[in-house]
């Protein structure tokens, strides 16, 4: 390349650079009185869960703003895709804070993304409400002052299934889980809790399958070969569908008692249609069978707004915004420290009734439903769902405090 050509190329680059880097300067001035909620999530990577989530958020936002907002100010949602990985998420979160001047952060779905943003929140002393990530570390081992979490954690979901697992009184258990932190910690918690409740239990097989790439035939067969009389399943989404179909065809789980995490959530249950595995005891969200008045109100409003039934994502999105509104109202301001103090012990009226953000470990006590899968009109449903309050399965405040780092 000749110098003059290089010059032209460089000038072009410089101009493009300048344009890009100056754009923050040109971004419109913010309306002073709005409360800006910075939200980031893996919309592209986890579309099935997050599309209903977005709708839930927007519904709550509309309701709150129609009622005059919070502390006299309307809420504004600044929503971004976090790219589905921690590197991009940290950049997007920083952008929300510096360029968009949001008052607080919320969102995230994947555990490692949630943990990375939580660490950023701690470092920059920004309030962060993690909406979806399930990792126990978020509120325990890696918990910090500025991070709260709404959804019941992996530990809580496992603990909710524990009474049914113990009641079944089976001796030989097999476990199948996706091979990453969520699956590993669910399997570990399950083994620990069951062993404590039923010391003579034996774990005869453990299958750790690559996420999204389960080789379902061999896995189902390996489990059947171990001749378990009960199975604990942590698979979800496409892996679950593959596994269920293979297990059905091979009659691999005939006569076996199965407890399964999250499988009752419409996001994962509905694609199975009439092949939903009958008799599995699952955690989930049976929107069609909930008698809680607050939920009925939510259900009617959601259906009126979107002409569709809610998924669990809708509940999480809705409850996230409601939580933030309640917290800001209690704090009387959007100041981070005041907001953190307000969230500790904050009571929120959610779609499953009232719940609390615990002061000890910053975990919300919003619960989930446990029921038995059945098939009705060609689709899977949860029979006799029971709402399990999150508070009833969490360790005591004193124990939870011991699980968190000392400085917080």
């Amino acid at each position, binding site marked *: 390349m000749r110098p003059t050509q290089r010059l032209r190329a460089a000038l072009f680059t410089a101009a493009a650079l300048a344009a890009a880097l100056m754009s923050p300067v040109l971004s419109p001035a913010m309306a002073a009185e709005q409360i800006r909620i910075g939200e980031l999530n893996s919309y592209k990577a986890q579309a099935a869960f997050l599309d209903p989530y977005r709708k839930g958020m927007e519904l709550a936002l509309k309701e709150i703003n129609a009622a005059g907002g919070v502390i006299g100010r309307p809420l504004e949602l600044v929503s971004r895709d976090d790219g589905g990985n921690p590197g991009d998420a940290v950049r997007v979160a920083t952008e929300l804070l510096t360029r968009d001047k949001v008052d607080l952060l919320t969102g995230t779905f994947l555990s490692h993304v949630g943990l990375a943003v939580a660490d950023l929140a701690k470092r920059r002393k920004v309030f962060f409400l993690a909406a979806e990530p399930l990792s126990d570390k978020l509120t325990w081992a890696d918990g910090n002052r500025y991070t709260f979490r709404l959804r019941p954690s992996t530990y809580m979901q496992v603990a909710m299934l524990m009474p049914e697992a113990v009641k079944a009184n089976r001796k030989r258990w097999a476990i199948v889980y996706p091979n990453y932190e969520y699956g590993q910690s669910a399997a570990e918690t399950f083994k620990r809790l069951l062993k404590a409740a039923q010391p003579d239990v034996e774990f005869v097989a453990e299958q750790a399958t690559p996420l999204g790439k389960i080789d379902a035939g061999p896995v189902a067969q390996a489990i059947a070969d171990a001749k378990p009389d009960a199975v604990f399943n942590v698979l979800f989404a496409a892996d679950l569908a593959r596994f269920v*179909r293979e297990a059905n065809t091979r009659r691999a789980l005939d006569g076996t008692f199965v407890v399964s995490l999250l499988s009752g959530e419409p996001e994962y249950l509905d694609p199975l249609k009439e092949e939903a595995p009958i008799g599995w005891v699952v955690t989930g969200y049976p929107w069609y069978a909930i008698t809680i008045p607050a939920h009925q109100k939510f259900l009617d409003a959601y259906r009126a707004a979107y002409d569709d039934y809610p998924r669990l994502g809708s509940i999480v999105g809705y409850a996230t915004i409601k939580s933030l509104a309640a917290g800001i109202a209690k704090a009387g301001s959007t100041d981070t420290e005041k907001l953190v103090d307000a969230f500790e012990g904050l009571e929120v009226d959610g779609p499953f009734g009232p719940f609390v953000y615990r002061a000890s470990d910053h975990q919300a006590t919003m619960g989930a439903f446990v029921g038995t899968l059945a098939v009705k009109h060609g689709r899977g449903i949860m029979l006799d769902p029971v709402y399990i309050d999150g508070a009833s399965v969490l360790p005591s405040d004193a124990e939870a405090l011991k699980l968190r780092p000392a400085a917080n």
Partner: protein
Amino acid sequence: MSFEALLFQAVNGFASASGLFLVAAGLSIIFGVTRIVNMAHGSFYMLGLYLAVTLAPLLGETFGGALGFWGGILGAALVTAALGALVEVVLLRRIYAAPELYQLLATFALLLIINDATLYFWGPEDILGPQAPGLSGSVEFLGRRLPEYDIFLALMGPIVLIVLHITLTRTRFGRLIRAATQDRDMVAALGINEALLFTAVFALGTGIAGFGGALQMAREPANLALDLSVLGDAFVVVVVGGMGSIRGAYLAALLVAEVKALCTALGLVEVGGFTFNMSRLTLVAEFLVMAVVLVLRPHGLFGRPQPAQARRGEAEAPLVPLGRTGRLIALAVLVCFAGIPLLGAVASYAPVLALDMVIAALFAASLHLLMGPGGLASFGHAAYFGLGAYGTAYAATVLGLPTPLAFAVGMATAAAGAVLFGWFCVRLEGVYFAMLTLAFAQIVWSIAHQWEEVTGGSNGLFGVWPDPPFDSANGLYLAALGVTVLGLALIRRLVFAPFGLALRAARDSRLRAEASGIAVEKVRWLAFAIAGTLCGAAGGLFAFAKGSISPEAISVGRSIDGLVMVLLGGVHSLMGPLLGAGGLTLLQDMVMRESPYWRGLLGLIILLIVLIFPSGLAAGLPRKRGAP
């Protein structure tokens, strides 16, 4: 574990092998003839499955379940073949003249576009298709139940293999394909309509992929993650079998499937008091197989050395050192970048974004040292990025070392990895080199993913924040800029030093270089080590910039990002990777904000760039005037 159980699992493996083989066969044929590394191959597989689950119920309504199911599969295969032909005619045909690997950029853009298009048309929820009518049951075998559909699938692989084999050996079309695989230019010189042949081959390859996807209808739901997850497997199978060998592909598919089935069957294994869960190995089984095969047999099981590649584009001009004007401009750009923190509060996001750009620039430039002057396209460069990042993060958090020292540990980790893996990789060339680097990257990834105690498992390590004075956005940015400039200066110095000349000579003609007394493998090994070390520096900066590090930093996605940056910028200029890295980072930051369909948008923009500047931005902007 009884013998019968193992035998039964081995039978299971045959069904999985057929699935793998069908994706890989098409890829192999396409690569053999057109030399296109088709990144969108998994997308056609995914499309095949989506089309099948849509067509089967539709056809089923009018023709009955059985005809609907099989008709759906056939229809899906035909539609994907037609789509493949369309893509070849409209898009790929325009860029055959571009330097090798540039088609990769176009097909990568296609991958992004097809995924978003699928999301748009079919929605985000998984769609589980119907089971095969008449084959939905199972038969008793070895005291266990073997699904009838698995038997059907297990037979389908060999049937397609035989049909393909006969087509390739007994028909005129097949002879043309084999001839074109060996020497494209000769085929063209003999008056064969090359354009038509290429279209037919691409349609055939994508059609087989679509067929393979459609056949999975009875086994798995259509979902949006299939394209990428299948792509990796397809590459592995093709390479393990030997490029262009269909038999090899089948054998490789069988090998991979059986190894996985074995790992699954063994389950918990106790060795010397330690319990190890073999099923965890299924995470990387295929890449372990590939690494072993390529180390032992550099051209795969049935592959032959690749025929010498007649260059299609014009011969590459030697690199020219910066002139006086060039130096002044480089200095001006550097001053602009260094001045970004002065913008202060008005553009407080600028250093954050610029930091990502600077890190990407170092990452891309280090890859370019291998790809450009070295002529060795690494598909697993993220391994050294990740090693650098993890080394830094571990030293900074667990060992509590000060920032500069932790950074040095990161670079050392990456250097060690590059020296080790490089020793194996530089023995190979072309696609085999690329795939061995990919295999090592996947192995590193899986270790980071599984070694909970040291790497934090799938969540990674947190709290990797730098000490003062690097703890502010500006401080870290300036430090990163300094490191990157040093790295770039080193690369530039090396490329124009005798070492660089030797590297380029080895690229242009290995034979002549060796005859001139250049120890080609040693030179390449050194280049590999330097590139890996500098890449590790980029990784270390990344860890400090993000405050955390997770296995995603080593994923295939990041390796591909690196390739895209280098190719987008232009492989023939030292400035190319910088343009590409800056451009892609900026572009992604912008489109992510603009549209929910940002991946598709990004794909479209990349496609546009490829069409306008078929050799990358740096080569495209200023037109060549006369010989340099």
